[in-house]
């Protein structure tokens, strides 16, 4: 049954995300050829036009990123579990745990796909003979960074970051599910309560995380998933710190999973 749920979840989610990412690929290719053209025929009269095209590209990238997240984290589970569709989903002969796993697995897969495609897009935009030439150097630099940030060797450091990314991603999704499930057990202000709980959980976990880090006498700071976007932060972390955060995230994710499961099975409150 889990397999069937995953199949249908993937199908349903892809209906929205596939065109979105096809658009990303299209923008990338068109943009790439345009960049080539612009570089070959430099004409400063069009400078403003070029700048606004770059702006458009960056905005499109950002929009795709945000839409993917909002859709996977909020819109899809809300629609499928707590709107009229919930009447269909929650009377299927499957357990709440299977419902959660199916959505979690499909969402994590799509997030990875999304990040990969965004990275690829940026790479393709930037690529030129110069970049290609210095590519091995860049990789080397990246490896050095990983080694110096984590204190591990390159392989273990990379594994650490990949696991950290996956776990943080799952944790983020499960916490949102939990907040939504709790919020929808109320008769009124479902959305407001969901958001309030999310903020509470966010502050609470950050606090515990920080306190634990201080107690463990490790230089604190966010690493893992968030560090991909706030590179400055991860510079403070070490590999051990990241592993501590992985364990902490796993604990939070597990708790969120069980609370979601409880609310889906015992406190479901469809309109």
């Amino acid at each position, binding site marked *: 049954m889990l397999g069937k749920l995953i199949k249908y979840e993937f199908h*349903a989610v892809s209906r929205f995300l596939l065109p979105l990412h096809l658009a990303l690929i299209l923008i990338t290719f068109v943009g790439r050829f345009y960049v080539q053209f612009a570089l070959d025929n430099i004409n400063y009269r069009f400078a403003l036009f070029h700048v606004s095209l770059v702006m458009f590209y960056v905005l499109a990238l950002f929009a795709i990123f945000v839409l993917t997240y909002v859709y996977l984290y909020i819109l899809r589970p809300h629609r499928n579990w707590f709107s*009229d569709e919930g009447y*269909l989903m929650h009377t299927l002969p499957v357990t709440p745990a299977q419902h959660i796993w199916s959505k979690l697995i499909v969402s994590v897969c799509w997030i990875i796909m999304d990040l990969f495609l965004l990275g690829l897009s940026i790479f393709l935009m930037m690529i030129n003979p110069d970049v290609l030439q210095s590519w091995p150097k860049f990789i080397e630099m990246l490896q050095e960074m990983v080694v110096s940030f984590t204190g591990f060797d390159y392989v273990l450091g990379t594994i650490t970051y990949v696991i950290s990314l996956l776990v943080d991603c799952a944790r983020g999704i499960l916490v949102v599910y939990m907040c939504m499930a709790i919020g929808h057990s109320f*008769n009124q202000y479902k959305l407001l309560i969901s958001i309030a709980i999310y903020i509470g959980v966010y502050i609470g976990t950050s606090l515990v995380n920080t306190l634990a880090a201080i107690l463990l006498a490790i230089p604190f700071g966010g690493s893992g998933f968030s560090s991909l976007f706030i590179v400055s932060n991860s510079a403070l972390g070490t590999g051990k710190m990241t592993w501590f955060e992985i364990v902490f995230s796993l604990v939070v994710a597990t708790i969120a999973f069980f609370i979601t499961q409880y609310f889906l099975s*015992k406190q*479901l409150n469809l309109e």
Partner: protein
Amino acid sequence: METLMECRQLSKHYGNKIALDHINLTIERGRIIGLLGPNGSGKTTLIKLINGILTPTSGCLYINGQIPGVETKKAVSYLPERTYFNSWMKVTDILHFFSDFYVDFDSRRALEMLHRLNINESDRLRTMSKGTKEKVQLIMVMSRDADLYCLDEPIGGVDPAARDYILQTIITNYRENATVLISTHLISDIENVLDDAIFIQGGRIMLTGSVDDIRMREGKSVDALFREVFRC
């Protein structure tokens, strides 16, 4: 006769509001039963409890001797008041969905009924009227070989032709080891189709009995009795 469903001291509260109040009820196999009561009497709450999308506040409910869960969901087919299919779905998507998740789903029966309504597998729900969508949903629900069918207000707000179609579908698909539970406040429309009537009001069972017994005893239709019992 064999018991299909049983409620013992079943209660459901929403905060301070009592939706069901210590209900004792036994439902047997092979019956078509009307769950009759005014709006807000607890009909939908009872049906949701049977389907496991609500949990009792106290008391218990058994279907085939089991509390609602994965096993009972295999045996209960539920038509809620809501239309729950995505509008982008094609009829064939829905057929696959049901036959994937419900072992007892009979695709051939569903297709036969759909074709009789001139609905094709490749039709999208988006192109259908609200009434047609509701019929598709009813066909899906009735095409399962379930033990218990729960139809929540299937004839509320439909035209007489649609109502006849719904009742006909229920009669055609009747099997003697299965029970159909129909909740409604429009009794005269379905009275001839019912074996038994359950009157519910304010979360309490007011009366249960076979329709013909009630007619024999009271000398009036169940609908007339209902109007007397629930006179405002």
